C-alpha cells in the first residue's frame, strides 16, 4: 500500500518533468530555428535601414512633423496686427483678403484691419477661427515675454494641483444662485460680499435653484439673491461625512513628478494660464498602445511560425515525434509568451508600474497568442494569415483599449485588463475581486481558443486545404462525443458570446434609438449561433443518431448549459459590480446586454422564463440541424426570431 501511494507522486513528478523537458526542448528549438531562419545579408540590410532611421530621427525631430501645415487659408494684409501672428503659424496660409475667394470656399477667414471680418460658415471655417484664436493667444504670450515689466506682462500665476477625492458627483449647494454669472445686472453686488457657505441654515434653497434657471430677468435674480444667501450648512456636513475620510488620505499624489507616466498625465503645472495644459484625456489610449503594440508584432512572428509548420507538411516530423500535441503547442508558444511578458515588464519598469501591470498583461498576451494560433490553424495561406492577424490586432486592441478609456467613468471598464494597468499606473489600489473580474474572462477565452486550435492540430486539418467553415465545424465537433459534452461546449463558448455582444453594443451604441432594437436582434443571433452551431457540427460529423428524441435531448443540454453558464457569469459580475455603486445607466446597459438580467434580479421565480427560452430555441435549432444544412439554417432563423421576440417583450415590459 505504502509503496503504491509513494510511487504515485513520484510518477506524477516524473510525468511533469518529462512534459517540462519536452516543452523546453521544443521551445529551444523554436528559438534557435527562428534565429537561424534569417540570413546574415537580411540582418545586415535591416540593420542598415534601422541605423538610417536612427540617423534620420534627429533631423525629423528638429524639423518637427507638422501635419496640419497650411490647411486653413487666411486673407490678411501686412498692416493688420494679425499679420505677424498668422504668418508665424504654419497651420495658416496667408492670402490677400478677397471676399470672392471666401464665397468660393478658397479662403476661410477674412481679416480687415484689426478684427476678423468674415469667416466661412462651414465646419472648416469655424475650425479655422478656433485655431486662429489659440494662435493669437500664443502670439500674445510671445509678445509679452519680451516685455521689460514681467509682472504686468504676466499678472496671473497659476499652480495646478490634482487632489483626488472620493465623491461620485458634484452637488453644488443652492447658494450658487447668488453668484450665478447670468444675472449680470445685480449678481456682482452679492458676490462682492463674499459670504461663505455653511453660514445660517436656509429655508429657501429650494427656490434658489429654480430662480437660478430663470435668473436672466433682473427681478427674480434679485429675489433669489436676497433669500438664498444661506446654505444648509449642517445638511452638507452630514452628507459629506462619509466621504471625507478617504479623500484626505490619498491627496495630491501626482504632484511634481517627472517620470514618463507623470508627463503623460500632464502632472501638475505652473506658470501663466496658457502654460497649464489639461491632462491628456486619452492617456489610457497611449498606455494601451504602449502595452498592446508589442503584442501585435509578436503575434506576427508567432502566426508565421505556426502556419510555417503547415506549409509543405513540415510539421509532420514534429507530429510523429514522441511528444504530445499539448507539448508541441506549449513549446512553440512559450518563447513568444515569454517575449511578450519580457516586453511588458520592461514597459512597466519604464512607467514605474507595479507587478500588477505585468500580471494584467498575462491574460491579454495569452488572448493575442491563442487567437493567432487558432487563426493560423484556420488560414490556408500566408496571405490569409496576414488578414487574420490584422483582424486579431484590430479587434483585440479595441477590446483592450476601448473600455480602458472609461477607466474613471464606469466600473464596466474593468472588462479590459488594460484598465487594471491604467489604474495601477495611477497608483490606485486594485482589489482581488476586481483583478479576477478583469482577468478571468480573457484567460478562459484564451484557453478555449487554444483548445479549439489544438483540436485542429492533427494531420487531417493541418496539411489539407479544407475550407474554413468546415474547419470551424471540425474544431467544434472535435471534443463532442456524448450528449453532456454539448452542454459543456455551449458553456465554454459563452466568453465568445459575451465578447461578441460587447462589440455589438460598442458598435451600435452611437446609432441612438434604433440601436436597442438592433442590439437585441444581434444578441439573439449571437446566442442562438453559440447554442446550436456545435450541435450542427456534431451531426455533420455523425456523432449522434438523427432521431427526433436525440435532437431534443441535445437542444435541452445546450439550452441548460447556456443558461447555467450565463447565470453563473452574471452572478460573478453582479457580485463585483454592485459592490461599487453602479448607476442606473450601467444597469440599463446590462439589461440591454443580457436582456433578462433585471428579471433575475427581480425574482428567482422568473429564472424559469430564460431557461425555458434557451431550451426551446436550442431545441428548435437542433431539430433542424439533424436533417441538413438548409433545414438548420431555416430552424435557426425561427429560433432567432423567437429569441428576438422574447427579448423585445422583456425589454418593452421593463421599459414601459
Amino acid at each position, binding site marked *: 500500500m505504502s509503496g503504491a501511494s509513494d510511487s504515485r507522486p513520484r510518477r506524477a513528478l516524473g510525468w511533469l518533468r518529462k512534459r517540462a523537458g519536452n516543452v523546453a526542448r521544443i521551445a529551444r528549438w523554436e528559438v534557435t530555428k527562428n534565429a537561424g531562419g534569417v540570413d546574415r545579408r537580411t540582418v545586415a*540590410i535591416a540593420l542598415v*535601414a534601422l541605423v*538610417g*532611421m536612427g540617423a*534620420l530621427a534627429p533631423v525629423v525631430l528638429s*524639423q518637427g*512633423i507638422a*501635419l*496640419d501645415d*497650411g490647411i*486653413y487659408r487666411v486673407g490678411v494684409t501686412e498692416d493688420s*496686427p494679425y499679420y505677424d501672428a498668422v504668418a508665424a503659424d504654419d497651420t495658416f*496660409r496667408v492670402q490677400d483678403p478677397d471676399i470672392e475667394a471666401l464665397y468660393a470656399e478658397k479662403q476661410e477667414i477674412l481679416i480687415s484691419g484689426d*478684427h476678423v471680418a468674415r469667416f466661412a460658415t462651414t465646419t*472648416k471655417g*469655424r*475650425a479655422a*477661427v478656433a485655431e486662429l*484664436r489659440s494662435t*493669437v*493667444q500664443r502670439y500674445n504670450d510671445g*509678445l*509679452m515675454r519680451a*516685455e521689460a515689466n514681467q509682472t*504686468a*506682462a504676466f*499678472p*496671473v*500665476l*497659476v499652480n495646478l494641483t490634482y*487632489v483626488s*477625492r472620493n*465623491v461620485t458627483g*458634484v452637488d453644488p449647494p443652492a447658494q450658487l444662485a447668488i*453668484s450665478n*454669472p447670468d444675472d449680470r445686472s445685480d449678481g456682482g453686488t452679492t458676490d462682492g460680499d*463674499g459670504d*461663505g*457657505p455653511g453660514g445660517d441654515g436656509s429655508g429657501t434653497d429650494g427656490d434658489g435653484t429654480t430662480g437660478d434657471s430663470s435668473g436672466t430677468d433682473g427681478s427674480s435674480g434679485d429675489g433669489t439673491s436676497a433669500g438664498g444667501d444661506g446654505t444648509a450648512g449642517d445638511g*452638507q*456636513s452630514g452628507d*459629506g461625512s462619509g466621504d471625507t475620510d478617504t*479623500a484626505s488620505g490619498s491627496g495630491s*499624489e501626482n504632484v511634481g513628478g517627472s517620470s514618463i507616466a507623470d508627463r503623460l498625465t500632464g502632472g501638475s503645472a505652473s506658470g*501663466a494660464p496658457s502654460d*497649464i*495644459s*489639461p*491632462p491628456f484625456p486619452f492617456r489610457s489610449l497611449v498606455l494601451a498602445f504602449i502595452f498592446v503594440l508589442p503584442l501585435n508584432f509578436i503575434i506576427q512572428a508567432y502566426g508565421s511560425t505556426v502556419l510555417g509548420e503547415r*506549409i*509543405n507538411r513540415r510539421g509532420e516530423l514534429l507530429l510523429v515525434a514522441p511528444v504530445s500535441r499539448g507539448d508541441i503547442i506549449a513549446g512553440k508558444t512559450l518563447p513568444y509568451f515569454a517575449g511578450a511578458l519580457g516586453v511588458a515588464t520592461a514597459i512597466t519598469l519604464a512607467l514605474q508600474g507595479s507587478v500588477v501591470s505585468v500580471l494584467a498583461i498575462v491574460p491579454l498576451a495569452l488572448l493575442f497568442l491563442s487567437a493567432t494560433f487558432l487563426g493560423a490553424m484556420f488560414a490556408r495561406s*500566408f*496571405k490569409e494569415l*496576414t488578414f487574420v492577424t490584422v483582424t486579431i490586432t484590430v*479587434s483585440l486592441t479595441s477590446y483592450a483599449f*476601448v473600455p480602458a*478609456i472609461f477607466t474613471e*467613468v464606469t466600473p464596466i471598464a474593468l472588462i479590459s485588463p488594460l484598465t487594471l494597468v491604467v489604474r495601477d499606473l495611477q497608483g490606485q489600489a486594485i482589489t482581488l475581486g476586481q483583478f479576477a473580474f478583469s482577468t478571468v474572462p480573457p484567460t478562459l477565452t484564451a484557453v478555449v481558443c487554444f483548445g479549439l486550435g489544438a483540436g485542429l492540430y492533427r494531420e487531417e486539418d493541418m496539411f489539407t486545404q479544407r475550407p474554413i467553415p468546415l474547419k470551424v465545424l471540425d474544431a467544434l465537433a472535435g471534443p463532442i462525443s456524448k450528449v453532456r459534452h454539448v452542454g459543456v461546449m455551449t458553456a465554454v463558448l459563452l466568453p465568445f458570446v459575451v465578447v461578441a455582444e460587447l462589440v455589438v453594443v460598442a*458598435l451600435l451604441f*452611437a446609432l441612438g434609438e434604433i440601436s436597442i432594437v438592433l442590439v437585441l436582434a444581434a444578441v439573439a443571433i449571437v446566442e442562438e449561433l453559440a447554442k446550436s452551431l456545435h450541435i450542427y457540427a456534431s451531426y455533420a460529423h455523425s456523432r449522434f443518431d438523427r432521431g427526433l428524441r436525440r435532437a431534443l435531448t441535445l437542444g435541452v443540454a445546450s439550452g441548460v448549459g447556456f443558461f447555467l453558464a450565463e447565470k453563473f457569469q452574471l452572478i460573478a459580475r453582479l457580485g463585483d459590480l454592485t459592490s461599487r455603486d453602479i448607476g442606473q445607466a450601467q444597469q440599463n446597459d446590462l439589461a440591454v446586454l443580457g436582456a433578462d438580467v433585471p428579471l433575475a434580479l427581480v425574482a428567482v421565480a422568473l429564472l424559469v422564463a430564460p431557461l425555458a427560452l434557451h431550451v426551446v430555441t436550442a431545441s428548435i435549432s437542433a431539430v433542424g440541424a439533424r436533417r441538413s444544412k438548409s433545414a438548420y439554417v431555416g430552424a435557426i432563423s425561427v429560433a432567432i426570431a423567437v429569441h428576438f421576440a422574447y427579448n423585445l417583450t422583456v425589454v418593452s415590459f421593463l421599459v414601459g
Partner: protein
Amino acid sequence: MSGEWLSDPRATIARRDLASLSREKTIVLALLIQLFIAAFSSFLVVGLTSLYDPGSVSADDIVIGVAGDDADALVEAAREQESVRTLTYADEESLMAAYRQGEVHAAMITDGAGGRINVEVVAPTESIETTLLVDQARTLLEKVEANEREARAGNLERTLVPVPDDVDASQYFGFTYTVLVPLLLFLPPFISGSVAVDALTEEMERGTLELLRVAPLSLVDIVDGKALAMVLIAPLQGLLWIGLLGFNGISVANVVPLLAMVTAFATIVVVVGLLLGVLTGRRRQAQLLYSVVVLFGFGTLTLLPEHPATTVAKLAVDSATTGTLLHVAGYVVAAAVAFVLARAVVARTDPETLS
C-alpha cells in the same frame, strides 16, 4: 509580340491572384476590417464626447469655488464665461472642505503676493472630466490675465492682438483631416505591399512558381500580374474609405488626386515588396526587409517640403496648393520609374535561381 498576346497572361495572373483573395474570403475580411476601423474611429471621434455622461459635468454647469485676496477678479472674469459659475468661500479651509465634499468641481485659491494674482488651482485627479475642467479653468484664468493686462496696459510697451471671438467649432476637425484621413489612405497600400510579398514568396516556397513558369509566361509577366492585382485593390479600398467617411459626415475633397496618390504609393510599395521577394526568395526575409525598408522610406519622406500626410490632409480638406499637386505628380512619376526599374531587375534575374 502583339499587344493582345502580351497583356493577356498578365491579366490572367492578376485575375488569378484576385480570385484567390476572394476565394479565401480574405478580401471580405479586409473590407470587414476596414468597415470596423471606420466605425471604430467614428465612434472614437464622434461618439466619445456624447458617450461620456454629461449629467455630472455638462458644459454649462461647471462650478468653481474661489477664495482669497483676488477672488473678485475671478468672479468678474467668470461672469463673461457662460459655462462657468463661481462660488465664493470665506477662506482656504472652507473652500477645501467644500471641494472634498463635492460641492464644487474645482477650487481656486488666490493671493496677491508680489504684485501678481497667484492662483492655486485644485482639480480632481485625472479623468475625462478633469480635462474638461482644466480646460475651462484655463479659459477663465486667461480671461483674468487679459483683464489684468488691460488694467496694467500703462506699464506695457507692446499692444496685444485682439483675440477673435469664440465660435462653436468641432475640436476633432483638425484631427480628422490631418491624422485620420491620411492613416486610412496609407493603410491599403501598405497592406497591398505585404500581401504582394506573400503572394510571390508563397508560390516560391510551395514550389508552385515552377508550375506557373511551365506556362508560356516570363518571370516579368508573373511579377507584372501580381503587381497589377495588388496595386489595383489599394485605390479601391481608398475609395471605400472616402465613401464611408462621407457617410459619417466627413466630406473628402479632391478624390481623384487622392486616389492617384494612393495608387502611386501602392505601386511603389508593391514593387518594393515584389523585388524583395524575387531577390531573397524567402518569405520571412522578404517580409522583415519589406517592413523595415518601407518604414525607412516613409521616414525619409519627411525630408520633402511637404510630408505625404500633409499632402493628403491638404487635398482632403480642399486647401491644396500647386505645390501639393506637384508632390502628387512627383509620386506618380516616382511610381512609374520604380515600376520600370523593377521590371528591368526582374528581367535580368535568372528564374532558375528562385525556387
